[in-house]
């Protein structure tokens, strides 16, 4: 019968229309911004810099190695390396960025900077409401604006942050063990030095610097 297909389609539409009053499956929209859908844990928008402790400048993990600057596909990161060094999370003196800018009008949220960073210093934020009326300066984030604490990182990507923390703790323990061994070796060396040792004796192997 002509029109049967149309009627069947109409019935389907009616089922969806009235269904949206009773079934959540059929009413999929929410009233943004009053109502929001929760962001996915893996969601990524723009990068931020992680710092440990309370002081953002002292705790910054970034060592200004500039790998992310080089690998960034649209080249939106700009880093200036410091002349002096400051201790990192493991107490090892490292360079730090005196300038770290990300132009989020160029950034395409591809996460390659996060993947290539060997120091777990740059991560992806989930903040997406970043509209501003300033086209240049408003969308150019400097290192102060980019710095977010490790606690914040834990709130947005809990699983990932825990993994990162355990990895860093492991590395730190390794570094500390190495430093301890080195210190012990140095102490042993120092203890051994006053004794009249034969001049042909080799220095203890594995002595740290």
């Amino acid at each position, binding site marked *: 019968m002509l029109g049967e*297909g149309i009627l069947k*389609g109409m*019935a*389907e539409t009616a089922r969806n229309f009235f269904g949206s009053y009773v079934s959540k499956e059929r009413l999929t929209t929410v009233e943004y911004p009053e109502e929001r859908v929760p962001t996915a844990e*893996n969601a990524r928008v723009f990068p931020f810099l992680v710092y440990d402790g309370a002081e953002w400048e002292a705790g910054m993990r970034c060592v200004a190695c500039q790998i992310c600057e080089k690998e960034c*596909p649209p080249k939106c990161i700009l880093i200036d390396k410091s002349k002096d060094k400051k201790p990192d999370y493991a107490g090892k003196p490292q360079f730090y960025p005196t300038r770290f800018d990300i132009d989020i009008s160029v950034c395409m*949220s*591809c996460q390659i900077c996060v993947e*290539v960073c060997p120091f777990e210093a740059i991560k992806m934020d989930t903040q997406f409401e970043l509209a501003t009326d300033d086209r240049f300066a408003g969308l150019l984030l400097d290192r102060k604006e980019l710095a977010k604490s490790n606690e914040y990182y834990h709130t947005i990507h809990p699983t990932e942050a825990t993994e990162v923390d355990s990895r860093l703790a492991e590395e730190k323990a390794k570094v500390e063990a190495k430093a301890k061994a080195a210190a012990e070796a140095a102490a042993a060396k120092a203890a051994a030095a006053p004794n009249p040792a034969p001049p042909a004796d080799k220095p203890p192997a594995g002595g740290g610097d």
Partner: protein
Amino acid sequence: MSLAETKSEKVAGWNRPPVVEPDGEGELLEVAMGPHHPSTHGVFRMDVALDGERVIRLKPVFGYLHRNHEKIAEGASYLASMPYTDRLDYFCSLTNNWAYALAVEKLSGQEVPERAEYIRVILAELTRIQNHASTIGFLLQEMGASGTPLMYAFREREKILDLFESLTGSRMMCNYMRFGGCRVDVSTAWLDATRKVVAGLPGFIDEFEALLTANEILMARCQGVGILKPDLAVNAGISGPMLRGSGVNYDIRKVDHYGIYDRFKFRVPLGDHGDIYDRYMVRVLEMRESIIILDQALRDIPAGPIMDPKAKIRGFRPKPGEAYGRIEAPKGELGFYLISDGGPNPYRYRVRPPSLINLTVLEDMCLGQNVADVVLIFGSVDIVLGEVDR
């Protein structure tokens, strides 16, 4: 350039579009449909010469979105091109990723772990479903069914995009696959969520079909319109649902067995007449076959690593050589041709865009049809301008 000057008749023997003579007397009306025409899926122009309502000539014009993706890629490292491939066919970023990863893996001889292959299949088939669903939605939108079918399609697409977001971090620009595997592993929770979504998909397609397939208006507008003959389709390099809609049995998943597609049982739906309705039906049936593949993949996915242990993220330099890798993307055959000179960036990087090549026969299909049908025929080709213009 006036339309009359295009398409030289001097060249003999080529498979040219048919010559359509105007019926009556008087001048032809030349209309520029686009680049800001609501039916053109972006910025695309069709310069049409009309005799009344009939199309006498048609010339597609594009390049408005041209950014020379290939040149950018030749100046960037292999990895840095991966996020750019997302932006080719922005509906199907995961299949674009796969095609590029496949070509680079061929170039460098990398192996992909089994679990990563399964993940790739799952993501590619989900991408195919959401692409076909929205294509049909858009097609109906262009037919005048304003909104309803498109919103049904988008409702399902949203569920699939949520899965993409929770796995890859982004809904459309996934940037997920890497040379020799995938970026992050899927969790059991994600697999369970996917199973739940896939279990709901047959119901959605039933509903979609109840709404559309037997609809008399759709049949009247689509059947016998925009016919593409199989010999022309093969000769013009048409691929994907358009080729199969014309009845040519050619699915790269079946022919090349790339990835692990030889492990799955699925059928290749074929059309009979090569009209818009056949292309619509092929897409609907392909969605059903994708669900069958998804069921098998989600059942069999093994545990294990997701990256080739030898794969390098930084400082990746394949040996000199070249490779052409292609997959069956939702829109057709998506290929990447790469030449390496041993450096960190490709010497030559070429995308074989299915959307662009499928447009070759647009004129052939539209000539002699009514101008209102041009919009439909164009919609049934299923293009994304990000890929056409690159």
